[in-house]
């Protein structure tokens, strides 16, 4: 991993030096174990702060929009497979132009889900850790435990089919062999009845406190005015009651249909551990089945929700 980080830093330094980019969006070490933090690098010497490992769970495509990077010239961005696909979606949706970004693809073996990790140690505080091959040895007050990396990977990463950014200008490390999901989706939700699934989601969504961390961490949630923020007139209630909250999550899922790349950033961002990943994963499958489309692979694609085809399935029309 250090080797990749070294290469990454050198790559970024070179890009900055050669003025191929003015600002690079990446990750640096966070203040807590297992936390990275997004970083914006304009100066070559700051490139040494860059890291890349399984703690880099934020989807950086989020920062390609709005005022965050505007007026900063050409942007370089470090991209896992999912970040890369989100960037492609931004291009497809005319939010940015391909030539406006330099995509730095990076070898990604998946990122961890801190909540899973906390559960593995009985929610005790982890103070430090070290990585030994596929094992992660975590330590806290009065305990030391060896964990398998696979057990704490984010669900979205376990199901990931596209670990490499589909489009890139530079690639750091070797690309992960494509089209080999690390493990097939073992989503037992699929086998449940619709009532049971509804009960599952009711339970999950009831934990939601409406902080919108999911939406705000989502690279594709870039609406200038989100439907939940419509205030003139107000579209629906703002309190965390199950009905309103459920509508929020359902509409958000529908609105990201054909756009969501199942990066899992929403789930990882949630402070109360609402598992939203199955919604995205299922919606991706639905879009693939119905329209033969996979979001974020082709910058020239027409998004299925912005298109009509005679062949489109229409069995739902009575």
């Amino acid at each position, binding site marked *: 991993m250090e080797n990749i980080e070294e290469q990454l830093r050198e790559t970024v330094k070179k890009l900055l030096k050669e003025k191929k980019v003015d600002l690079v969006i990446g990750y640096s070490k966070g*203040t807590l174990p297992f936390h*990275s933090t997004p970083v914006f690098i304009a100066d070559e010497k700051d490139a040494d702060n860059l890291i890349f490992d399984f703690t880099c769970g934020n989807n950086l495509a989020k920062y390609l929009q709005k005022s965050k990077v505007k007026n900063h010239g050409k942007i370089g961005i470090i991209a896992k497979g999912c970040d890369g696909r989100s960037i492609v979606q931004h291009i497809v949706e005319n939010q940015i132009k391909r030539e406006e970004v330099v995509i730095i693809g990076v070898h990604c073996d998946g990122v961890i889900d801190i909540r899973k990790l906390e559960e593995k140690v009985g929610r005790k*505080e982890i103070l430090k850790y070290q990585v030994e091959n596929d094992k992660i040895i975590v330590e806290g007050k009065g305990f030391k435990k060896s964990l398998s990396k696979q057990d704490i990977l984010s669900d979205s990463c376990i199901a990931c089919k596209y670990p490499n950014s589909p489009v890139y200008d530079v690639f750091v490390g070797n690309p992960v062999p494509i089209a080999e999901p690390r493990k097939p989706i073992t989503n037992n939700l699929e086998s449940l009845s619709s009532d049971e699934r509804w009960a599952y989601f009711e339970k999950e969504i009831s934990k939601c406190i409406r902080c*919108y*961390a999911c939406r705000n961490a989502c690279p594709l949630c870039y609406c200038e005015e989100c439907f939940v*923020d419509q205030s003139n007139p107000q579209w629906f209630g703002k309190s965390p009651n199950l009905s309103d909250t459920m509508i929020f999550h359902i509409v958000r899922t529908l609105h990201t249909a054909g756009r969501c790349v199942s990066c899992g950033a929403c789930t*990882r*961002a949630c402070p109360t551990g609402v598992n939203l990943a199955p919604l995205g994963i299922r919606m991706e499958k639905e879009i693939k089945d119905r329209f033969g489309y996979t979001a974020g692979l082709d910058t020239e694609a027409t998004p299925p929700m912005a298109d009509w085809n005679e062949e489109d399935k229409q069995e739902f029309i009575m």
Partner: protein
Amino acid sequence: MDILKIKKDNLKQFLEYLAKKYTIFAPVEEDGVSSFREIEKMEIGKLKFDFYNTDKPPKDIFFPQTETLFTYDENSQLSTLPQDSANNSQLSKPIAIFGVRPCDAKSFTLLDKVFDSEKYTDTYWKERYKDALVFTLACNNPLSTCFCNWVDGGPFNKNGADIFLIDIGEAFLAEPCSKKGEEVIHKLLLQKAAGDDLKKGEHLKREAESMISKSIELASLKKSLDSFWDNPLWEETARKCLNCAACTYLCPTCHCFDIQDEGKSGKGKRIRIWDSCMFKLFTQEAAGTNPRPTGKERMRQRIMHKFNYLVETIGEFGCVGCGRCIISCPVNLDVREVIKEIKKIRN
């Protein structure tokens, strides 16, 4: 005041006794999320107190995320106490909150200064808080994210406690810290703590205080911020912020709210809901303008409100150092780093 002892074996009885006069709130963990909620009698035996900070702060006991202020019906009179509100049961008996951490207990005193001051009285808050009984449970094991000691607190701080508990293993030491607390506890004929127990308590206190992160002098922070309005740090800090409300909703002292009417055709209710300065809508004006148009202004507001404005209005920082905002931030925006950076720039 004597320090007493509640044996853990007798805790159930103790709480059952308390439940006769109080609605009890205690920490529970459900679906991986810990919070304080009303405890039914039969649940008392199942309570666990070996948690760190609860994931959610206890502020919603006194200041619910949503509450009905009144219902209205154009054909009848205005009703000030909503019939359909879940708050009714809470109001029928005073609230006892058991096992709240010192930082959270302190947060109640800060919120009380905001909601019940000489200038303003918020009856909804006051009704719940004025008779409430707060059992603070000392932190024997502060987290690495705890920084209560930076903001005039500490793992054994008694501010806001009616009864101060220390977990010494087989029992809790219980020290009454207010008249209210003394009255309740003296009716119980509890055993007095022995010298050894007190020593154990002292030892735990010293241990906890040595465990917590080194304090940083913040006496000049308020003043530094007086002239920090235009500093480029705000923009820099705000850059990675996603402007979600994880930090503010999980903050025990954030108390901004929105008021809305829900209803139609002459009937409905007026509710208040937590709001967050992190949201664009927070300062959206009817005319279409927004005085805090970008993340920079919103970040500045969050920090300034806690470390400058509240110092001016209530005389204390609006932060109790619980560290929840640090743990919950999806991009690891650590408020301690922001404070350190401000200090560095000003020194």
